[in-house]
């Protein structure tokens, strides 16, 4: 079954219709590219100061009240949306695989952005950036983007978000919205990458995916656990007590993500991989106020 079929495209269209303002001004409750200047839409007044362009003086106010006030206009600018997609092998875990949902989410977000005439780039990464869909604009590019996403495969070794972000931010590009779609199982910790994005003035939003077996594993007995990213193994005897500890640790990990988001104003969406992508997008839009 193809990942992006006609039904998927219909859902994308629907989502784009209901989320006209998603990135423009209120995505994740963040004002994005507000600049006053040469736009056509009036914004407000300010006191005239020396050196200001006389053309922007509001002569009507001066005639009525004798005050020199400068008219300000909202300058409209296209948004740069960077979608960072985790393609590490851990994303192949789950039922259905987290990687499928991640690509569907990236496709949906890209479609909505392209429909709003924003610029979208997709960066696939694992331990490093492994593939790139450069900044593009226009809805007609969506098919190329979907084809790019379909061509991606899980690969690489252990996820290294810090290394990926470092390479990403060193690129000569405008700042914009950085959406990281990943399970965030980074042995070095996701914080390094997130911090770097914030320091580089990227608006950060994280979509964290996990499987039910990752949250509540049903393993018991004598086992050799194999990390599918690093191929590292560990012989363990899993007991109910160990399972209890695991669940506690996983919940702590999820809670640390939420704390990080609250602390640094990072948008965060946590979901299980069995959730349909359109529901998840709608949920994100509801959270951002893009839809009622």
């Amino acid at each position, binding site marked *: 079954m193809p990942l992006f079929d006609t039904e998927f495209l219909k859902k994308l269209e629907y989502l784009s219709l209901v989320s006209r303002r998603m990135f423009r001004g209120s995505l994740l409750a963040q004002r994005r590219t507000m600049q006053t200047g040469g736009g056509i839409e009036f914004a407000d007044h300010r006191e005239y100061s020396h050196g200001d362009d006389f053309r922007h003086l509001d002569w009507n106010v001066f005639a009525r009240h004798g005050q020199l006030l400068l008219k300000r206009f909202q300058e409209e600018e296209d948004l740069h949306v960077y979608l960072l997609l985790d393609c590490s092998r851990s994303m192949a875990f789950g039922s259905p695989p987290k990687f499928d949902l991640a690509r569907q989410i990236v496709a949906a977000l890209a479609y909505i952005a392209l429909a709003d005439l924003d610029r979208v780039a997709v960066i696939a990464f694992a331990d490093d950036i492994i593939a790139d869909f450069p900044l593009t604009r226009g809805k007609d590019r969506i098919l190329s983007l979907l084809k790019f996403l379909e061509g991606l495969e899980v690969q690489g070794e252990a996820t290294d978000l810090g290394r990926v972000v470092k390479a990403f931010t060193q690129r000569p590009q405008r700042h914009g919205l950085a959406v990281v779609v990943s399970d965030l199982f980074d*042995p070095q910790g996701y914080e390094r990458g997130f911090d770097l994005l914030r320091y580089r003035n990227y608006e950060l939003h994280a979509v964290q995916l996990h499987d039910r077996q*990752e949250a509540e594993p049903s393993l018991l007995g*004598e086992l050799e*656990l194999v*990390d599918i990213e690093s191929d590292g193994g*560990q012989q363990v005897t899993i007991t109910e007590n*160990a399972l209890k500890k695991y669940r506690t640790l*996983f919940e702590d990990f999820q809670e640390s993500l939420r704390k990080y988001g609250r602390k640094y104003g990072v948008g965060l969406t946590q979901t299980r991989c069995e959730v349909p992508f359109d529901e998840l997008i709608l949920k994100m839009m509801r959270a951002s106020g893009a839809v009622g």
Partner: protein
Amino acid sequence: MSLASPLALLWLAALIPVVVFYILKIRLRRVPVSTILFWRQIYDEQQPRSIWQRMRHWLSLLAQVVLILLLVLALADPFFAWETRQLRRIVLIVDNSASMNATDVSPSRLAAAKDEALRVIRGMRFRDELAIVTAGGSPRVVCGFSSHSRTLSHAIDDVVATDNPTRVIEAVELARRLLGERQDEHQREIVVLTDTAKGQARQNSNLADHSAERAPASPPPNLNFEVPDPGLQIRTRRFGTNAGNVGITQFQTRRSLIDPLGYEILVEVTNASDELVECRLEIDLNDEVVDVVPLKLTPGQRWSQSFEKTSADGGHLMAKLDRADTLAVDNRAWAVLPQREMLPVTLVTEGNLFLQKVFESNPLVTLTRIDPPGWKPPGSRIRQNAGTENSNVAFNSARSLATAATSGITVLHRHVPEVLPSGAVLVIDPRNSCEAWQLGEPIQNPIVHQQDKDSPVLGHVRLDNVVMPEARQVTFASDEGVKVLARSVAGDPLLATIERPGQKVLLLTVNLDEGDLPLRTAFPILMMNALNWCTENRGELRESLPTGAITEIDVAALRSVGQAFQPDPNAPSDVELNQTTRPAGVAGTTGQPGKADLRLVAPDGRRSALPTPSERLSLGPFDQCGVWRVVADEGDTTLLELACNLADRNESDVRVPKSDAATSASVVSTGWLGNRPVWFWLIAVAWLLMAVEWWAYQRRVIE
């Protein structure tokens, strides 16, 4: 150690699949996970594994291998050599005699003995065999040798209390025979649970008195059953205290020798205690007080007294003491007093004052005097028709003399018909011959030279100095049924009896008018004996039996009693059959015991069927005090009643010396294996091992 089932070791092959499957099981399963971060955090926090944790798999495998080894070894049923050497064959003797009913040991001595017996059974070692013998009355094996504890326990539970005398010595002899004389490797033991005092020969003092009615018992070689016997261990546990008891040790009745309606009671009360006892003895006849005697008995005193009473109606005599003591069964005693029946006597004579008065003086006799010309022999018609009516002859032949006697007794004085009547006939001083004898010349002064002292007719009668002039010589037509009781010097019969089917004849050839026999005291006694002989002692007392006794009864007499009360269409019209004549001990009857099964009914209502031989029937041993009944199965008709009393001084003496009670410790013994076979303990260890393994591994004590 040896194995009873070495082939079971083949089950050790089960070790192979167990080990293989276990190794396959403990091979680690590789499970891919998306990240191992969290698992590492869990297990890296834990302390380094102990030696138990590192060895856990091998310890588990070892436990399972040991488990299989234990189970297979248990299947092989191992046993030690000493087990066979110390194998015991035990005979457990439980004394359930009357004295064991004493309540000085709560709830009773027998209950305590049964509890001890159960403890002995529980203390049996594996492979021990035990048999159970009761010693109350005739020793009885209630359970043969068995190792099955449940069977033995049930046998002990089924041992019931009896009123029988103790027969521990015979029981020990029986146990010796059960154990055999074989000196093999088995240990032979006899465990006696009794209240018999140490070294006391508890032989029933009344045994000699009733030896004829008791079951034959071989005399024991030793009166003390605890004599040492190589290879045989006798252990005794005695139950009881030194509690005293007062009991009726003798209660018998007999007919008065001088009063036909009178009877005499002999009562003996024994104070088997160490203190002075005051009590009251009451004698009842059919629940009506006959006599009351206050008693004051010194320690060990035996008080006895005879009472003379009169009663024609008869009934149940009961003596009872008003003292509640440790043994209740000897506080009451019973006797059966049969009803005296009126006896019709037809005196055919031309006149003899002595003869008439001797019958008139008997209150049981209804005398009818008839002159010879007006008398017609009652049985002559039957006799005359014998040749033509075979059925009537057969009927009369089958009927016993007792039945014929119900029509009364015919006394023929001088006048003798040619054919003697049927039934009971007394012929005195015959003057003419008949079909039974030919009369000869008179004997002038015969002297009784020879007298049958064993004949009931001559009981308490001596004729050797009686003058009997003009006695007649008699020549009997046939010797069949003829018994001469007294002869003259010349050998002529003076007194004889003739017993033929349907006929009993007593012949006295003495001329009463000439001799001095009517003036002698022997004459009324002779006539009384003659009447009793004719009626076969009906109404005579049957003595009270001691418990454990066996007696015999005449089944034919019982049958005749039943027939006697049935109207017989074949009976001659001139024979009165509506008279009720009962044998000794019979209170009343209306049934037909000859056609019905007989049953013996115990005082507590227990019924047991009796075999019905043609002649005599043995009853007993009677194991309960009270009045026993023989009944016809149909209609519950009582045919015979028998009184049974403890009447045993030894049983009434329930005291157990303190020294005996103190030295009789528990006889329970156990082996070091707890009386369990080796396989039991192997299974127990396997079970324990399995539990520990489950607790340690399934409960994750070892991780």
